[in-house]
């Protein structure tokens, strides 16, 4: 088990190293002359040179990369060009905001989707099952900007139940914050519900049809207990990994929702950075999302292997 954990962590580190190279190449190298891009075609050659010198972009590439990674490891991702503030500070604040939105979305979608998947599986082939699977699938294909706009029009403008912007006023209490995040969370819930419910349904059906469930029923165990102990326990194992793999999406993939609800999350920050050619901010943001992805996948894998006796206890002894 510990060997497995170490190997898994090692793999995550290698992935991050590769990611940092790609990010560096993508954001710092490919645009060519960084200062020229930042300053535009009409800037003087002297100004470009001076900016390149200030940004360190006149040095050899390897030196730049090593310098960038070295600083990043010490928690320094450089200065944002547009905001003239440390990238870490900007990202930190945005990350906290994104995490809040993701948490609200998660708290809503996970119980709903698990319950939906289980109910659909138990009513396999019946109307309830069709409604849940077809409804979930239909919701998944609605783009966030469509559902988001409809939600704003209906619930913020017509009914005025929720604010149309997700950013709460300064110093707002916990409930106010949650309240303002519910509306932006719903498009995410719609996207994720069908997916998680479907995976759950498949897992539950497999477990219901499994020989060990037959054994449990033919032992004379009550149905409720068979479902809780024999079916769900084995069915939800793979679902956990699927759910955790969505954490990365919820943290880094929310550009549309964040823009629509004018919410200062990390997705929007990266979007802005790329528009304003703020390369240090862009690189830092992508790297942070990469880390979030890796950490959530790692936790999912560890949770899975800890819950699965085949991996936890190992083979015959």
């Amino acid at each position, binding site marked *: 088990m510990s060997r497995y954990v170490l190997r898994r962590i090692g793999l995550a580190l290698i992935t991050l190293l590769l990611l940092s190279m790609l990010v560096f190449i993508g954001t710092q190298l490919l645009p060519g002359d960084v200062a020229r891009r930042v300053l535009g075609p009409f800037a003087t050659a002297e100004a470009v040179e001076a900016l390149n010198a200030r940004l360190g972009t006149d040095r050899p590439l390897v030196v730049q990369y090593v310098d960038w990674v070295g600083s990043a490891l010490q928690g320094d991702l450089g200065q944002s060009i547009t905001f003239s503030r440390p990238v870490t500070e900007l990202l930190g604040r945005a990350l906290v905001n994104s995490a809040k939105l993701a948490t609200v979305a998660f708290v809503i979608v996970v119980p709903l989707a698990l319950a939906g998947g289980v109910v659909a599986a138990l009513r396999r082939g019946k109307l309830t099952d069709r409604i849940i699977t077809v409804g979930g699938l239909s919701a998944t294909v609605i783009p966030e900007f469509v559902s988001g706009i409809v939600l704003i029009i209906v619930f913020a403008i017509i009914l005025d139940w929720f604010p149309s912007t997700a950013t709460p006023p300064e110093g707002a209490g916990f409930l106010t914050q949650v309240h303002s995040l519910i509306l932006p969370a719903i498009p995410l819930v719609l996207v994720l519900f069908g997916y998680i419910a479907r995976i759950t349904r498949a897992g539950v059906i497999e477990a219901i049809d499994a020989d*060990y469930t037959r*054994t449990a029923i033919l*032992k*004379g165990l009550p149905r409720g207990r068979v479902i809780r102990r024999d079916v769900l*326990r*084995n069915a939800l194992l793979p679902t956990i990994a699927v759910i955790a793999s969505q954490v990365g999406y919820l943290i880094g993939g929310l550009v549309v929702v964040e823009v629509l609800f004018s919410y200062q999350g990390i997705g929007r920050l990266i979007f802005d950075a790329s528009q304003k050619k703020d390369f240090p901010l862009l690189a830092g943001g992508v790297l942070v999302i990469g880390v979030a992805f890796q950490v959530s996948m790692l936790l999912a894998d560890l949770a899975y292997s800890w819950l699965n006796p*085949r991996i936890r206890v190992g*083979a*015959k002894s």
Partner: protein
Amino acid sequence: MSEAAPKPILEVENLGIDYKIGTEWKTAIRDVSFTIDRQETFGLVGESGCGKTTVAMAIMHYLPRNGRVSSGSIRLAGRDLVDLSPNELRDVRVNQISMVYQNPSTALNPSIRIGAQVADVFELMGVPKDERSQRVIDILAKVQIADPARVVGRYPHQLSGGMLQRVVIAMAIASEPTLLVLDEPTTGLDATVEAEVLDLVSNLRDDIGTSVLYISHSLAVIRRMCDRVGVLYAGRLMAEGAAEAVFTDPRHPYTVGLLRSLPSSEIGRDEATLDTIPGFLPPLGADIKGCVYADRCAIAEDICRDVEPDLKPLTGNRFSRCHFPDRAPDLPRAVAAEPPVRQTETEPLVEISNVSKTFIQDGHPVYALNGIDLTIHVGETVALVGESGSGKTTLAKVLLGIDAPDEGSVITLSGEELAAEVRDRGQEDVGAVQMVFQNPDSALNRRHSVRRIIGRAVRLLRGVGRKPSDERTRDLLAEVRMGMEYYNAKPRHLSGGLKQRVAIARAFAGSPALVVCDEPTSALDVSVQAAIINLLAELQAEENVAYLFISHDLNVVRYLADRVAVMYLGRLMEVGPAKRVFGGPHHPYTEALLSAAPDLQEGARIRLEGEIPSASEPPPGCMFQTRCPRKIGEICETIEPDLVETEAGYSIRCHIPVAELGRLQATRV
């Protein structure tokens, strides 16, 4: 002295079961009636698809979602089981009926410890909490699990198949049920483990006095375990009666056919072919006016096709659903008894010298093969026998070049050294050593037609173009006795036996000198198995090909093999002519294997304690000393005996002299 006869425990009366296929209900079981008396063991036997498991599941009230009982009744101790409320049903399952299933490795919940799963049963029976763990340990001890206190803390994946089946049996007998249903409980287990499980079931049955419904495709197992048997065919009970009578003096052409398809220990492949049953099982729900077996029956007359016979009582308290039960014993053979004539050569073809294979698993070496020396001659059949884990399949893979053996291993084909890996072998060498797998379902590409499956092998192994390959494909189909109507068929349209014929045709695409057959008939029904064995024998006579035949079925080996090699933990323990190895004196391991094999004849048995040790930690001294019933002392534990040629062509690896083994073994028979 007797007034009313005691009521039977289980009464199945005019049972009919349908399955919904698409939108139609199709009859799977029609009008099946039988009873099981107190403490009686009743066997249901028949080939796959005949409805055995369906009957069992109807009794357990656990038919698949698309199944329903359409008529009849099932009564357990007088109580009708078909119309029970959910609570009554649970009560019956807790206290009165238990079941043991075919596949023990999937029958237990993989994420719950053994102890907790067994404790459920006691909880349901109302045993107080503080007594349960002791009861669990007691019941595990009762099914002869060594060290039950340790086993309760294990998860299913940490136990072997034999151990898991004991756990399932423990759960089944914990409530001392009125009826125990066993559905192929030993299929898929090694013969040695099977023998142990069967002994265990017999003892427990006598001990707790339960009635048993025993379901199996194996006539030998049913014969051994059951007082009375019913023979199922296409959802009908064709024959019923005392096991002894049904198997020694069968009065239904189907039973006669089944028994004749079994290879017996008396007749070898050079004496006579195996008889087979022509044709196929009718499809589910087929509308048949007369006898369901008439199409395949050699003594059928017009009346058989028009009127379905009743299950008629015969002398000796038995029944037969046949218009002409008295003619059944004289059923004409379906295939000529004349065996194919073989060439007799003794030229060596493949020489395996000092072949070892060590796998590295989690940093530890696993010695799968250790110093194997074996010669296979042109046109002969060498059988490889031994329990799972003995290294049979590894040796096959090394021969085929799928796994490269360790340094120093040498394999030659007609005197030329064979490359270790198949990718380094020339087209001719690849074609010369081919394989037929156990499961034809997974060995054939489901998307390809028969023509494409065989044609591709022809082109690859002969390097010919499309046109000559088509020609050769047609020839090969004819050689495996398949008609041209299958030329463009996909595997899903073929029965198991036909698929295996296609697999055999593919192996013969490049005119092989050696075909490795890895359990080629163990997934097939007995009548199909007989036809495949006949085919292999005919092909061998025609093509003068050699077989390395891996099998756990010693009766098949005895019928087909010229020589036998017995493997244990990666070593050859005994090699010699089949007659000599089976006739004895044998190696103690061979002796145990032979006595474990279920046979239609009864005989005393040697029990093998425990399981085959792990190849990563082989025992010191003789590999077999940890389980050997004939161990003579310290020498066995410290010094590994050599494989010694004691007579021409016969070698044995044992410290006990052959003469002494002969003396010891003579007392058994």
